[in-house]
C-alpha cells in the first residue's frame, strides 16, 4: 500500500537507486573481466594517452632536465615559428602532393584490380594471381626500398642497365628530385595495391548473381555489367575506405619516406613526420618538433571528422 502514496519524484529516485545498485551488481559480477582488461587499459593510458598529455610541451620551452613541470611556458611561440618558417610551405606542399598521389593514383587501383579479378572464371588462376600480388604487403619498407635501391642504382642497377642497352641516358633515380614522387607512389602501389583488393573482393561476393543474368538478358556487355552492377554494389565500401584514407591525410608513412629521403631530394621529399624526426630527435628541439607533430595530428583528426560528416550528408554510412 505504501508504494501508491509515493510522489512521482520519490518514485523516480527509487528507480534511479535501484538502477544504480543493479549497475553496481553488474560491476561486481564482472570483477575478473575488469582484471583482464586492466593491463591493456594501463598500456593505452601510458603509451597512447600520456603522450597526448605530453603535447603540452609544444606550448613550453621544454628542457629535459627541467621536465614538464619545470619548463617555461612560451604560449604559441613554436606554432608561430612553424607557420612563419620558410620550410613550412615546402613541407606542407610536399605532404599535400603525396596525399594527392595516394588519393588520385593509388586509391582507384585496388578497385580496378578487384573488378578484373571478379571477372576471372577459373578459380585457380584467380587464386594464383591473388597469392602473388599479396606478397609485397608483408615485406618491410626497408626491404621494399632496398630492392628498389639495388634495381635503380646508377651503377649495376638492372633498370639503368636496360635503359643503357636500349640506347637511353642513364637516370640517377635515387638522387633526383623529379623521380622521388613517381618512385614513392610506385612503391606504394607495389606494396599495397594487391592487398588492398581483399576488402573490395569481399564486398563483391555479396552481389546477387541474378543481377548479372538480368543484365545479360538486356544485352549489357561485360564493361556495362561492371559499371552498372559491380561498382554500385561496392560503393559503400569505397566511400568508407576513402574516408579512412582522407583521415590518414598526413600519415604518408614515416618509414617509407624517411628511407627514400636524402639531401638531393629533400625539397620534394621532406614531410611533417621526417621533419619532426630530424628537428626533434636529431637536433633536440623537443618543443618545436612536438608543435609540428601536434599540428599534423590535429589536421588529421579534423579531416577524418570532416570526411565522415561529408559521407553522412550524402546519406552514406559513416565509419563511426
Amino acid at each position, binding site marked *: 500500500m505504501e508504494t501508491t502514496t509515493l510522489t512521482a519524484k520519490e518514485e523516480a529516485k527509487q528507480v534511479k537507486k535501484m538502477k544504480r545498485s543493479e549497475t553496481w551488481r553488474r560491476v561486481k559480477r564482472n570483477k575478473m573481466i*575488469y582484471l583482464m582488461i586492466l593491463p*591493456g587499459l594501463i598500456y593505452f593510458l601510458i603509451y597512447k594517452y600520456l603522450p597526448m598529455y605530453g603535447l603540452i610541451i609544444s606550448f613550453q620551452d621544454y628542457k629535459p632536465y627541467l621536465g614538464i613541470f619545470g619548463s617555461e611556458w612560451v604560449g604559441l611561440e613554436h606554432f608561430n615559428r612553424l607557420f612563419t618558417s620558410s620550410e613550412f610551405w615546402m613541407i606542407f606542399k610536399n605532404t599535400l602532393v603525396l596525399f594527392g598521389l595516394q588519393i588520385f593514383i593509388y586509391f582507384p587501383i585496388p578497385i580496378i584490380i578487384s573488378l578484373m*579479378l571478379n571477372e576471372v572464371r577459373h578459380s585457380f588462376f584467380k587464386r594464383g594471381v591473388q597469392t602473388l*600480388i599479396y606478397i609485397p604487403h608483408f615485406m618491410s*619498407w626497408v626491404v621494399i626500398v632496398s630492392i628498389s635501391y639495388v634495381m635503380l642504382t646508377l651503377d649495376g642497377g638492372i633498370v639503368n642497365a636496360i635503359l643503357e642497352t636500349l640506347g637511353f641516358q642513364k637516370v640517377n633515380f635515387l638522387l633526383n628530385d623529379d623521380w622521388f614522387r613517381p618512385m614513392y607512389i610506385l612503391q606504394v602501389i607495389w606494396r599495397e595495391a594487391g592487398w588492398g583488393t581483399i576488402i573490395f573482393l569481399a564486398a563483391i561476393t555479396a552481389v546477387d548473381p541474378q543481377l548479372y543474368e538480368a543484365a545479360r538478358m538486356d544485352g549489357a556487355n561485360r564493361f556495362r555489367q561492371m559499371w552498372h552492377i559491380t561498382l554500385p554494389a561496392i560503393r559503400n565500401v569505397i566511400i568508407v575506405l576513402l574516408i579512412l584514407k582522407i583521415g590518414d591525410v598526413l600519415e604518408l608513412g*614515416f618509414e617509407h619516406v624517411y628511407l627514400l629521403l636524402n639531401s638531393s631530394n629533400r625539397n620534394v621529399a621532406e614531410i611533417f613526420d621526417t621533419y619532426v624526426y630530424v628537428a626533434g630527435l636529431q637536433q633536440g628541439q623537443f618543443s618545436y618538433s612536438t608543435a609540428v607533430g601536434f599540428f599534423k595530428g590535429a589536421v588529421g583528426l579534423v579531416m577524418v571528422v570532416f570526411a565522415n560528416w561529408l559521407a553522412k550528408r550524402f546519406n552514406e554510412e559513416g565509419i563511426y
Partner: protein
Amino acid sequence: MAQQRISAGSRVFDFFNYFLLALLALITVLPFIHVVGSSFATSAEIARTKFLLFPTEFSLQAYKYIFSTDTIFRALGVSVIVTVGGTLWSMFFSTLTAYGLSRRDLVGRRVINFLIVFTLLFNGGMIPTFLVVQQTGLLDSLWALIVPVTINAFNMIILRSFFLNLPQGLEESAKIDGANDFSILFRIVIPISLPAIATISLFYAVTYWNTYMHAILYLADADKWPVQVLLRQIVVLASGMNYDAEAYTDVPPPEVTVKMATIVVATVPVLLVYPFLQKYFAKGALLGSVKG
C-alpha cells in the same frame, strides 16, 4: 540451365583481362626473383649480365661473406627474440583485452572502446611518445621494440569482433558449472578461436619482424639492432646519400651480391610463414572491416 552463349566481345574481354592480370602478378614478383637470383650469382656474372633472373653459375660466396662475421647472426638473433617474445607478449594482452571488451554486460564497455578507437584517430606523435618511452626506462633495451606497441588497436578490434560472434550459451553454461572468467577464456574461448588467434599472431609476428622505425628511434646501441636496421645499413652503406648513412662511411661498400643476399636473409622468414598467413589472413583482414 543452358550453357550461356559467349560472345566474341566477351572472349576479347577475357583475353585481355587474363593477360593483364598475369602481367600484374609477374611484375609484382619479378623484383624478388631478380634479388634472389642475383644473390646466388658470382660477382663476375652480375657484372657481365646486367639483367639477371636465374644465375648460370650457382655461387654461395655472398652468403659465406655475410655469415663470416657475427654481425648478421646477432641481428637475426635480436629479430627472432623480438618477434617470438613480442608476439607472445602482444597476443597475451590483446586476447585478454579483446575478450573482456567482448562481454556485452560489461559496464563502461562503450567508453573503453571509444578510448581505444580514438587512439587510431589521434595520437601524441613521435616526440611525446619518445619521451614516455624514455621516462619508462625502455631506451636502449629490446623492450622498447615491444612494450610501446603492446596492443595494436586494429588487431585487438579484429579479435574482439571474433569473440563477439561466438555463441553466448557456451560461456553461460560454463559459468553455471562454476568456472570463473579466466578458465572460461583459456579453456573454452581460446581453443575454439584458434583460427583467429593464429591470424592475429601472424600479423603481430610479421610486424615485429619488420620493425625498423622503433629501433632507430629507441636503440642507440648497434649491438641491439634488428635485421632490418642492418639491412638498411648494408644496402645504402658508404653511399653517403642518406641521413642515416653518415656513420658508416669508413667501411668499404659491399658487393651487389652481398646486398642481395642480405635482402634475402631479411625476407625469408616472412616468406616461410606466408603460406600459413595466406590460409587465414583474408578472413582476418575481413573481420577487421566489421565495425567496432
